[in-house]
């Protein structure tokens, strides 16, 4: 398993600096190269210092991006900085990112996610939007080539690919896993010849497209519909690109289920993910349970962190619901 060298470890800078006001750009741009290469999170909170996390360590940042272990000399974020970030990440259009505000994060070009916190405006028991946003968590996601190495054999039988659902709580590696699955199905692996793969990448997280070109390695035979709503994207791929497999992240809307059934009828395999800690939990969710009841999925993978983030806890056979693993693997 290796962290990808392409694009280079700091390609995140191009997108993320663009989302920041100039004085913070200077701070972030000044982060030493070796730390920047393995950076995982940048935390920006109003009135407080910027904190970065990577490889299990965290640092405060000085005004020139120097690493500090104590906050005294750190750069403190101003109200103006926060307003500016908000405007930039929403492309000066808060009205156009209402849905993202409700979900608590905005996705930048290339699939980088910015988590948001502020005051929730609640209407009828549901979050209507976020106000007074004052804290940002910029996540630098990286592809991990080879995370799917040890499970690929469970996902195929001869030349056939199984309909597969990946379940996990947030942040356990679903997106990272299906990205590598896409690459392996597309390029082939020992005992399996590459096939045509289609990705519907609603939030640009899987392929990390920049102006339509995948920045992550998702395979030589992979077509990506970038920034496209899932249900419509699936229909479109069926008609236009005739893939053997369609891969998409985070299903959960009723129309997603319809689109998946459409793909099934067209003889196309589906690989997708959903937030859920296990099958039992998924069965209690209205839309997920509907799909599970139909027994569409032949493999159900559950991720967790019993051996660290990205642990494959279980692989169920979708029909018998038997666990095919003796013990979790990572």
């Amino acid at each position, binding site marked *: 398993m290796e962290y990808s060298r392409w694009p280079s470890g700091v390609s995140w800078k191009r997108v993320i600096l*663009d989302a920041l*006001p*100039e004085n913070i750009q200077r701070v972030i741009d000044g982060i030493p190269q070796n730390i920047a290469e393995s950076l995982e999170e940048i935390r920006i909170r109003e009135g407080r210092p910027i904190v970065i996390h990577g490889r299990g360590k965290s640092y405060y940042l000085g005004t020139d991006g120097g690493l500090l272990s104590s906050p005294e000399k750190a750069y403190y974020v101003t109200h*103006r900085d926060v*307003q*500016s970030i908000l*405007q*930039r990440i*929403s*492309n*000066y*259009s*808060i*009205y*156009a990112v*209402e849905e993202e505000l409700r979900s608590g994060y905005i996705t930048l070009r290339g699939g980088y996610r910015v988590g948001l916190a502020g005051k929730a405006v609640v209407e009828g028991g549901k979050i209507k*939007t976020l106000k007074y946003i004052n804290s940002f968590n910029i996540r630098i996601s990286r592809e991990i080539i080879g995370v799917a190495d040890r499970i690929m054999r469970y996902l195929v039988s001869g030349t056939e690919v199984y309909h597969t659902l990946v379940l996990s709580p947030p942040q356990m590696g679903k997106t990272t896993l299906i990205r590598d699955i896409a690459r392996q199905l597309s390029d082939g692996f020992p005992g399996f010849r590459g096939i045509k793969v289609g990705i519907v990448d609603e939030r640009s997280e899987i392929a990390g497209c920049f102006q339509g070109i995948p920045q992550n390695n998702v395979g030589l035979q992979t077509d990506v519909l970038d920034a496209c709503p899932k249900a419509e994207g699936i229909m479109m791929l069926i008609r236009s690109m005739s893939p053997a497999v369609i891969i998409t992240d985070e299903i959960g809307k009723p129309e997603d289920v319809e689109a998946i059934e459409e793909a099934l009828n067209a003889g196309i395999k589906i690989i997708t993910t959903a937030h859920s800690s296990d099958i039992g939990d998924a069965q209690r969710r209205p839309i997920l349970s509907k799909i599970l009841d139909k027994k569409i999925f032949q493999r159900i993978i559950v991720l967790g962190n019993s051996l660290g983030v990205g642990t494959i806890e279980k692989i169920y056979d979708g029909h018998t619901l038997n666990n095919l693993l003796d013990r979790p693997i990572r």
Partner: protein
Amino acid sequence: MVFVKILSSLVIVMCCSFLGLQAANAYALRVKELRMLRMAFAQLESEVINYATFLPEAVERVAALLHGGVKEFFCDFSRRLQKRSGDTAAEAWEKALNCWKKHLHITMEDTQILLTFGKVLGVSDRESQQRYFQIIQSQLGNQEQKAEEACLKYQTMYKNLGVLGGLALAIILL
């Protein structure tokens, strides 16, 4: 000698009439520009509310429908947003407006209304954006009405003033 006198008085009269015409024209142009601004905001409202188009692109699209100084103002604003040079949309709006207001014929009061609107453009959800759009359109409507009245009142006056002033000046000087 007589010839020179006639020639110079002619020049004086022509110059003054021209100045008068320009002053009169400014009133008509203000009405025109206010009308165009109001149309621009109606278009922008539709892009923002109905299509949730991102602001830089929405402004660019609207600019394509405009002309003259108003178009230049909108183009400049959109360029600033796309370059991400200004930190906030309000700043970009203000800078663009300050750049182009000398090429427009709107009054200080009109400019102030535009500046105030710039502070809220894009920064809230659709519902409240729609309210802001309605407010600016009705404000511009009022200004337009005032401008029309002023135009009727002063347009002919300035035209005549120019010609008559020129004649008077010529008589006094010569």
